[in-house]
């Protein structure tokens, strides 16, 4: 198409195009009103579903009431009580450890298995299904199974440890071992999700890139570091964001296995919030913890999301 043709086409189209509506100083058109009215119910519903609980929770966090009565207005004293409590910082520390181990442990395991499943191994489909089981099985069943595995000295793992000469090992009674056990349990539950995300990302990578790199003399490790990881980085960041949210908000994995014990050794922020509201019946402080958690999650998610945008630009 020549420049002249282009210009002429452009000039021809002008008279047929509808005049651009000028909204300045004018009432919205009937069409716009119709659109707004059609969308309004959905928007109102979403706002009510999200905003109402948020407003109620915010109100609870600045009152000293219960789930039934609002109580007296106490300003930010619930927040002050929470952040000056050693238990909050102990829970925050465990939440951090639990999240870091949960995210990167499950990512490493998931990616390793995703890479393994790309190779030609027999019964690959069956392995994929079996490896998905920890993610698919309800957490109540998993935690019961793990409790059976490590709960008492007669359980299989402590019995094995005893036979191997480690003496009587209490996986859930010793604070350090309990924390390790809970983190390993989280990795076990979560790696299939990471495996699935990584498998999907790896499937989108053009195999021709590896062939070209091979011709250029790149080894397998170099291909992995310089080709695979950058090409799946967008998916990786997304899975990190999701898993971070899953870990910080993870209540059942911890609560069903250890209840946050022994002596708070595995109490995360969400467990602490639950126990404050529903066991100590301190609604205000419990909700304040939940709000602080939300704030931290928003910061982490935003940071990682910006990283994704950087990857997109690159």
């Amino acid at each position, binding site marked *: 198409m020549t420049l002249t043709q282009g210009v002429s086409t452009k000039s021809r189209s002008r008279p047929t195009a509808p005049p651009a509506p000028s909204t300045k100083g004018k009432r919205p058109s*009937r069409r716009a009103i*119709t659109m707004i*009215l*059609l969308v309004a*119910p959905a928007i109102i519903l979403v706002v009510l579903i999200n905003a109402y609980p948020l407003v109620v929770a915010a109100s609870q966090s600045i009152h*000293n009431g*219960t*789930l*039934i*009565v609002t109580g007296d207005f106490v300003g930010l004293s619930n927040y002050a009580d929470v952040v000056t409590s050693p*238990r909050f910082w102990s829970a925050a520390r465990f939440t951090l450890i639990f999240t870091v181990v949960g995210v990167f442990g499950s990512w490493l395991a998931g990616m390793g298995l995703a890479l393994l499943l790309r190779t030609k191994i027999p019964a690959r489909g069956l392995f994929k299904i079996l490896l998905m089981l920890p993610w698919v099985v309800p957490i109540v069943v998993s935690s019961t199974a793990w*409790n059976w595995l490590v*709960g*008492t*000295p*007669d359980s299989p793992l402590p019995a094995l440890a005893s036979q191997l000469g480690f003496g*009587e090992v*209490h996986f*859930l*009674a010793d604070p350090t071992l*309990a924390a390790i056990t809970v983190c390993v349990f989280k990795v076990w539950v979560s790696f299939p999700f990471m495996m699935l995300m990584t498998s999907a990302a790896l499937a989108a990578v053009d195999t021709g890139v590896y062939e070209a790199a091979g011709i250029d003399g790149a080894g397998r490790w170099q291909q992995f570091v310089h080709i695979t990881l950058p090409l799946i980085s967008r998916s990786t960041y997304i899975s990190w964001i999701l898993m971070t949210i899953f870990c910080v908000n993870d209540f059942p994995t911890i*609560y*069903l*296995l*250890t*209840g946050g*014990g*022994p*002596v*708070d050794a595995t109490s995360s922020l969400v467990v602490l919030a639950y*126990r*404050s509201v*529903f*066991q*100590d*019946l*301190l609604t205000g402080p419990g909700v304040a913890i939940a709000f602080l958690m939300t704030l931290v999650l928003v910061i982490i998610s935003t940071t990682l999301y910006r990283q994704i945008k950087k990857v997109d630009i690159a």
Partner: protein
Amino acid sequence: MSKAQHGGVSRRGFLGLAGAAIAAPALAACNVSGNSGANKAGGGGALKFWDMPWGTPAYNDLGKKIITDYTGSTKATYQIIQWNGFYQTFSSAIASKTGPAVSSGAGFQAFQFADQGQIAYADNFIESLKKDGTYDDFLPGVLDTMKTDKGYAGVPWQTDVRPFWYNKALLDQAGVSVPTSWDELLAAGKALKKVGVSGFATGAGAGNNLGAHTMVAMMVNNGGGMFDPDGKPDCVTDANIQAMTFVRELANEGIIDSGAVSYTADNLDAQWKNKKAGIGIHTPGLAARAGTTGKDLHVMDPLKSSSGTVAGLFFVNNLMMYTNTPSQEASEAFLKYYLGQIHTYWQSPVGVAVPVLKSIAKADYYAKDPNQVAIVDKWMPVCKTYAAKKTQSFAALAAVDGGQPLAQFAQAMLQGKTDPKAALTTLQQGLESIVKR
């Protein structure tokens, strides 16, 4: 006809229909809300009775039958509320005026909701029990546990005692007799340890309150408790320090299983079943839960503590009436009927705890089990509630039972590493933070 009407419906008509579609459920919701307000404890004017799974599944089947058979002027409905999340369930229902008119529930629930103005005090009902003779049928002391300054918060229907149990076969194997005092308990524990058995079996793992109950029971046994006679936290006392020093000795001697701190209720049951537990504080139904080992399990007499006192811990489970009811008369009429039927739970039996009525405790169907008789005859007369040394129960006990301070305290003591006075001081601070609110 405009262009927009080609589909058979005009734009205005469509919007009108959409508006109507949205308004209909909204109006319906308003109507429901209005109804619930008018009928209060709803169900079309029926009286709602909420019950917990107190025994085997047959318990709730029987409960439902009792309620179905009720022929009072106000129809009654039956709903099972699971223990998991029961506080949320009750609280949200009460807040939205859709809660029960009468319910069973946790031991201190009545005091908790009474404090929030949701409980109808049972004084008139108790007066009516005096007239028909039921009042005198209650075992000594149990009705008094329901008294508050404002009236009776509930009506007892069963007690959950925490007696000491022992496995006779294991004690024989260890060559020791049944302990009658803490000193003998220590000696028996050492002997049991030599045969690989715990002489103070308990658990404080996920969802298991028994460890906490055991610690309080030991304090109460020694003449102590968590509260002073005015109901203020009073943990750091000589009696409590002495009791917890004894517990620490049990832990350090290896008499308490070092894994006990993490044992769930199932883990602990497994220890009893597998003959790894020789002596321990447990629920009245332990023998029934221990499978074939149950035949070797017996209730011990209350022990004489280091300070020479004899006492135990119990929870008086009760039936409570709420202010949100079709009518108070209907609630009381239903409660009277229900109280007259509860003997069937022990007659069947369906795994409930210890009765509060003499007529049930002395009946043949109950008295055939010597363990249950021992609990009624020997333990109940010396038992106290969580409120000890205060005689009346109060709202904050709901937060104390199952709350974090006590659970942490129990775990710390079972580990055997914490100084008793330091642990009690931490417990004191924790309880003060709960009770002050």
